[in-house]
């Protein structure tokens, strides 16, 4: 019982730090979602000056560790170009995460778009639609639904990966947990911390499942 009481006293601090974790996960994923649509369409494009840079971007951000990218933006960039110094740890983390997640989401979106039956493109072309109209009205609306499960999966990964920011001392859930563990000399704090991560994951999985059902009315 005594241990439970101890854990309860830590909760306010943990929940406050959870806000940072959530805010970082959601804002980075949304920013990445926006970027990734362009990256995906760019990579599909048959024009080399468009698809080559997009492919290179995806290759780079998937090919290097997220933690290194975070260090690069927070420590290396200011040293290279002092005017690019980012004072806010949160902003640095947000940028690093957005750029990284965009590469993964771009691959998810590309795969979903390319999984749409070629017959759809042919039907649209035979009806005289342009490439842009075909993408916007025919392909992407069908690809949405197929993107939801892998995007959900990616979001859950992001949520957990945000614990990396504790290394640049941004006060997220993991950072706060480590602080409490150190200050109170008790490793019990990892129990409620993990539980909080689990609850958030469960809530978002539920939301994504609902969304998937809603988008598959026509199947």
């Amino acid at each position: 019982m005594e241990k439970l009481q101890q854990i309860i006293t830590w909760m306010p601090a943990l929940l406050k730090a959870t806000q940072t974790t959530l805010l970082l996960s959601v804002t980075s994923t949304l920013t990445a979602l926006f970027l990734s649509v362009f990256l995906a369409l760019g990579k599909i494009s048959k024009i080399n000056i468009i698809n080559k840079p997009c492919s290179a971007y995806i290759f780079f951000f998937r090919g290097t560790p997220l933690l290194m990218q975070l260090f690069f933006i927070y420590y290396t960039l200011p040293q290279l170009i002092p005017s690019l110094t980012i004072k806010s740890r949160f902003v640095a983390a947000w940028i690093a995460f957005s750029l990284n997640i965009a590469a993964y989401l771009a691959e998810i979106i590309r795969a979903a778009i390319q999984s749409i039956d070629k017959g759809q493109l042919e039907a649209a072309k035979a009806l005289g639609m342009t490439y842009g109209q075909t993408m916007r009205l025919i392909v992407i609306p069908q690809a949405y639904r197929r993107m939801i499960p892998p995007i959900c999966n990616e979001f859950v990964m992001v949520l957990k990966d945000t614990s990396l920011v504790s290394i640049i001392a941004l006060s997220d859930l993991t950072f706060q947990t480590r602080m409490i563990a150190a200050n109170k000399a008790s490793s019990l704090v990892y129990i409620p911390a993990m539980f909080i991560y689990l609850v958030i994951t469960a809530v978002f999985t539920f939301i994504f499942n609902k969304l998937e059902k809603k988008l598959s009315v026509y199947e």
Partner: protein
Amino acid sequence: MAMIVTENLCKSFHSLEVLKDVSLTIDQGEVVCIVGPSGAGKSTYLRALNNLETINSGKIYIDGVLIEDREKGSHTNKVKISRSERLSILLELGMVFQRFNLFPHMTALENIVIAQTTVRKRSKEEATEKALDLLERVGLLDKTNEYPSKLSGGQQQRLAIARALAMDPKVMLFDEPTSALDPELVGEVLAVMKKLAEDGMTMIVVTHEMAFARDVADRVVFMADGVIVEQSPPEEFFNNPKNPRLREFLRRTITREE
């Protein structure tokens, strides 16, 4: 009057020659059925007409306008017309696919409306009115708000025909329209096509339905190995075939049918 003229169409996929100097003229109001063994190049011919496949060489005239003119070896199209001109000529061809290719995320009505508003720039009201008209014509008025997945194969194909007709094509191309259907659903699609033929639509139909070719076609074309082997009015085509390959083909398909 010639509606479609093709001269010496050639098309290869890598080293495989699918069309070898195919020349064919289709007159306005004519119904031409193209039959032949699979791999003969029938579908490729249709797809070359509406630019789903790019030919390697040859000439294509649609409604008197030259839209493809490629010389052997060079492969570049010598015809210089603007994209919009080209598009408006290609819009004179409506296409019906073997696998329907309906838009699954749209209702029957939306399937017919979408290209009318985006390509033909009609108002929503006008497009809807036309769509309802066409749904009635193909007997699907009660399915207006259904998604394609809720329709039978025959209904889906009739919807696909209505979708193509909504663009007011002058020629309808049918690429094995009944090959993906259960046998009991073939009749309803052929009935719609027959009505269309009777209304004077110019039609090119790639098909394995010999009875349909005999009843509805003005001319039947036999293709094999990328060339037109024989063509004649159905009477003569079925009763007095000259080429031994055609005789063999008919012997096999007709015995199977009966």
